[in-house]
Structure formats: C-alpha cells, structure tokens
C-alpha cells in the first residue's frame, strides 16, 4: 500500500497543541490539525464549545496559552505566527487572509460606500489607480450578486444578506489563500442563507481557497466543508470527512448533534 500524493502536499496551516486558558477555565485544549491548500474545514459545536476561541487563535487575533500555529507564507516557508514581524502580520491580514464575521458590521465600514469597502483592501496593498480600483470593485459586486448601481451606497442601506455578500467581496478581492469564517450565515433568514451558502460554495471552488468555517449549523458544514472537527468543552472529540462524520457519527455527542437536526 502506497500513500498516494495529492496535488498539494505541503500544508498551508499547522496547529499544534493549541490551548487557551482563562485562569482555571480551559476554553480550548490541545487542538492539533493540518490544513492543506484548497481544503475547507468546518469546526462545529455548540456555544461555549471553544470553537470561536480556536478560530481567534488560528487567525492570530488571540495568543494561545500553549501550542502554536504555523502558516506557509507565499515564499513557501512555514512560519510560526507568534514569531512574525509586524509587516508580515499586516500582509496576512490585508492580503493573504480573509476574515468573514458573523455580523457584517464588524467586517465592513458601514458609513462609506460599498465600492470603497471593496477598494480599501486594494489600496492597502498599494493599488492607486482609481479607475482600476472601481472597475475591480464593480466586478466583485457582480460576482457576489449585488447590483452595480448600488456601488456608491453605504452598506448601512443594504439588507443583511447583501451586507454579508459585500463582506465576502471585500475579503476576496485581494485573492487570499485562506479565509476564516465565523458563523457566516448566522443572523440571516433561511432563504437568504441558502443563496449565500451557494455563492460561498462556488467561490471557494472557483478560487481554490482554503477555508476554516466555524458554525453550529451542520447543514452549513455539509454544504461547504470537506472535513469537519466536532468540539465539545474545548476539545476536539471527533474529526473526519464531513459526510462520514455526519452520516456515521461515532461519538455520543456527535450523534446527539446529528440527531437534533430538524428534517426539512
């Protein structure tokens, strides 16, 4: 038996023994995994399971109490996030990573135009030709199904679903290799969720993005992710192929989660 190698054999992100404690409370305990380019990982679990804490550590917004996260920079070198310089961190946040918040108001500037929201990320990486920025912003609005006629309107005039799509455009315009998503369909109506999920699914496929999606919604995990990690009380209790974990859950808690889904 030979281990057959896939297209990309170098991991993009490696988490080793990630732990976060607040005093005696351990929010996240000893989480390790490897993410490859183009791979979508869902982290599922109920509120308080530690999944959001984990996402913050993975995206360098929270320092772990123990363990480390390494990321393969564009030069091919795997680097410990804790040891990056300020310029390298900025590069990750502004260009190579995206972060889609549950609440679009956290990821957008609500009072400036939609076009500026998208264009801002381009200007941050040195674009300075107004015409090109506007053209790129328009084409991204189209890709996320926002009427280009609304380009000069501020997102505070947008519906919840439009805001979330705008947040996605703002994140993807710099062609990141990795996108973090925190309950991306969280506050939306069910009909709006389906459209957004479908859009995210096709964008992730087309762009070959790697993504780490935190969700308590197993339908989101099923539609978007290749692999899933189930968290409970700060620990990863089950992990595997998404359809395998959802169709043949092994742990009692995972069986409970899966059995709690209301039939459509």
């Amino acid at each position, binding site marked *: *038996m030979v281990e*057959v190698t896939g297209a990309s054999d170098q991991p993009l992100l490696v988490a080793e023994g990630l732990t976060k404690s607040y005093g005696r409370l351990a929010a996240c305990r000893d989480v390790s995994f490897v993410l490859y380019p183009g791979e979508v990982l869902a982290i599922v679990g109920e509120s308080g399971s530690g999944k959001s804490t984990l996402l913050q550590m993975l995206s360098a917004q929270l320092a772990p109490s123990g363990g480390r996260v390494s990321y393969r920079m564009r030069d091919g070198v795997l680097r410990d996030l804790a040891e990056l310089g300020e310029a390298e961190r900025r590069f990750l946040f502004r260009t190579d990573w995206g972060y889609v918040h549950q609440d679009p108001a956290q990821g957008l500037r609500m009072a400036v135009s939609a076009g500026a929201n998208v264009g801002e990320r381009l200007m941050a990486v040195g674009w300075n030709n107004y015409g090109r920025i506007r053209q790129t912003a328009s084409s991204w609005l189209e890709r996320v199904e926002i009427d280009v006629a609304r380009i000069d309107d501020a997102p505070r005039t947008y519906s919840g679903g439009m805001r979330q799509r705008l947040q996605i455009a703002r994140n993807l315009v710099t062609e990141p290799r990795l996108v973090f998503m925190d309950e991306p369909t969280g506050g939306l109506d069910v009909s709006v969720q389906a459209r957004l999920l479908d859009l995210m699914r096709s964008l992730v496929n087309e762009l070959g993005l790697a993504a780490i999606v935190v969700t308590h919604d197993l339908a989101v995990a099923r539609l978007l992710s290749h692999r899933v990690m189930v968290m409970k009380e700060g620990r990863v209790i089950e992990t595997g192929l998404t359809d*395998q974990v959802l169709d043949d859950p092994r742990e009692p808690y995972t069986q409970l989660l899966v059995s709690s889904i209301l039939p459509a």
Partner: protein
Amino acid sequence: MTVMLNVENARKTFTMHLQGGILLPVVQGVSFQVTAGECVVLSGPSGAGKSSILKMIFGNYRCDGGRISVRHQGEMIDVAGAEPRLVLNARRQTIGYVSQFLRAVPRVAALDVVAEPLLMAGVARDEARARAGALLGRLNIPERLWSLPPSTFSGGEQQRVNIARGFISELPILLLDEPTASLDAANRAVVVDLIAAKKQAGVAMIAIVHDDDIRAQIADRTVDVTTFAAAA
C-alpha cells in the same frame, strides 16, 4: 484481469449511544473482488447491508475492521484506513457513487449539477456542459429543464439527473445504488445501455438492483450479502 476493488473481511457495527449504547451489527467478514469491466450485483433482502457496503467502499461509512483496497492512480489504497484527503482524492479520480436520491444544491442548474464532476476533473466548461446536455437528452430530460435547479423536478427526473451526474465521469469504479428504482421502461433501458458502455470501457461496477430483469441484463456475477450477516 485487473483487480479494481478488493474487500477483505470488512466489518461494520453501529453503536447507538442515544439508545443506551445498543450495538447494531450490520455486516462482518465482507470479502469479494471486482475486476475492470465487470459488474457485480449485491443481492439480499432489505436490511441485509447492501447499501452499507457501498457506503463503506465510498468512505461514507467507517469500517470497524478489515480492508477495502481500491486501485487508485495505479496503486492499491485502503479506503478503510485512509486519510480524508486521500479518500476525497479517490472520489475525484477513481470512485463514483450513484445514489437513489439526489442531494440537490439550491439554485444550481441541472446542467451544471451534471457537468460538475467533469469540471472537477479538469475538463473545459464548454465541453463539460455540452457532454452534460447530451447525457441529459439521452435520459429524456427535456432541454427546457436544463437551466433549472433539479430540486423542483419530479422524483424520476431527479433520479435521472443523478444518474447523468454519476455516469458522465470517466471514473474507473462506479457504485450504483438502485440506479433504476423509479424509472419507466424506456429510461431503464437507457441505464442498461449506459452500464454496458461502461463495461466496454473497462469500468468496474458494484450495483444494487431489485428488479430481476435488470439484474439479469447487467450482472456478470452476484454476491450474496446474507453470507455476511453479522451475528446480533
């Protein structure tokens, strides 16, 4: 003959934690081989574990023991113990699964649902859509429906979209779970032809079919699943 699939002593038991941890034995000692160009039909009554065996081969259900060796890119890999990435890779390049039911993605047009496996295999979009249309036409899905999402279709139409999606690829192993279940005679005949063409192309198939007439037409060999009955 090239062995494409070799199942050795595969075993599956469900543990129902929410029902007091009762054990539900499904199958044990599952052993059979399938060679290129051969269609093996799994036989046995409902509940004997036929679909579970297909799901274990596809990596959808975990194995509790044994090996499921699949010829993937010229090497035998053990699906039962493989990393998720390798299983996904095998699904892209080696093993296709045609289930009874379409898990429809909202808003995606039937034509694109069918073309997707070709796109994933690197076929150009125009060619993939042209081939998808040809296959949908052959399965008697009228062209006016191609641009609509199949979630709005009748059960039989959905199943034909699913069949088209399963048969469009050039994967060397196909798992067929009642591919003709809710089809009329004309469409059943089309599926029988599609299976014959796959055999010609050297594809190894493992099928579940309840219709005796269809089974007689497609089966090169039958494996009786009741011999794998797990002791309760």
